[in-house]
């Protein structure tokens, strides 16, 4: 079951690739993402740019995929990626997949914007088209601008687009 707009986001603490633990505190963006999915890779730079442009917002990238079947999503592979790329946000491992289940994550990427009150304000894709970098995560940015201005988000939900979350079997 998915988290609905206005619902309280589930609290969690997860380790990043260096073993440091991170918790959810609003305002925040939780992005379920991974290493092996072309949609997640195509949108990654746009989400990273948004992270840099909204320093007052906590961005958390969470990889929930089953690494046994998808070794490209193992903790080691996540660590290698963070070390070789310029990541402006922590990359968290959701080994038990409990956080992804609690949020109702469906795809990588799947973006959740949480307000300062801890409630879900936006859920969906970063922007309308993974093929067009000029869109610059526009849906995510619109939501953040509204949340930070204390206004309602005009477009609170869009369809997440990407690879299915790889649940353990």
């Amino acid at each position: 079951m998915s988290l609905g707009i206005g619902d309280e986001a589930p609290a969690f603490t997860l380790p990043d690739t260096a073993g440091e633990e991170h918790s959810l505190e609003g305002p925040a963006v939780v992005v379920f993402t991974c290493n092996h999915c072309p949609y997640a890779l195509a949108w990654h730079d746009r989400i990273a740019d948004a992270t840099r442009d909204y320093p007052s917002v906590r961005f958390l990238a969470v990889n929930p995929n089953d690494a046994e079947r998808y070794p490209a999503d193992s903790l080691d592979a996540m660590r290698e990626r963070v070390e070789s790329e310029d990541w402006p946000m922590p990359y968290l491992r959701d080994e038990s997949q409990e956080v992804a289940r609690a949020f109702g994550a469906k795809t990588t990427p799947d973006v959740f914007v949480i307000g300062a009150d801890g409630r879900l304000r936006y859920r969906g894709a970063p922007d309308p088209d993974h093929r067009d970098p000029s869109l610059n995560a526009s849906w995510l940015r619109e939501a953040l601008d509204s949340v930070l201005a204390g206004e309602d988000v005009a477009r609170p939900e869009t369809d997440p687009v990407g690879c299915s979350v790889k649940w353990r079997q």
Partner: protein
Amino acid sequence: MTVELLWWDGCPSHPEALAELRRILREEGVEAEVSRVQIEDDEQARRERFPGSPTIRIDGEDIVPPGEGDPFSLTCRVYRTRDGRFSPLPDPEDLREAIRSRAA
């Protein structure tokens, strides 16, 4: 010319891949049926040497041959466009080039 589209339903790119493939075949004046092969489990993926969805083969040859040692499994395939971006679909010009070279 035989044209195959191998796909897995865990990846949403196959309808777009099919439309793109048909469009380019039409533009190149090639009359070929696209044979669609759904890959449903890891065993079939290994048997079909399926590196991910979508995979397009022309006369049995992958239009973007996978790297040596790449696993065969149920996954979304990562392509690179000609300008270096990650993409769930092959660059249309790579597809066009593959069709032209076979049609010649």
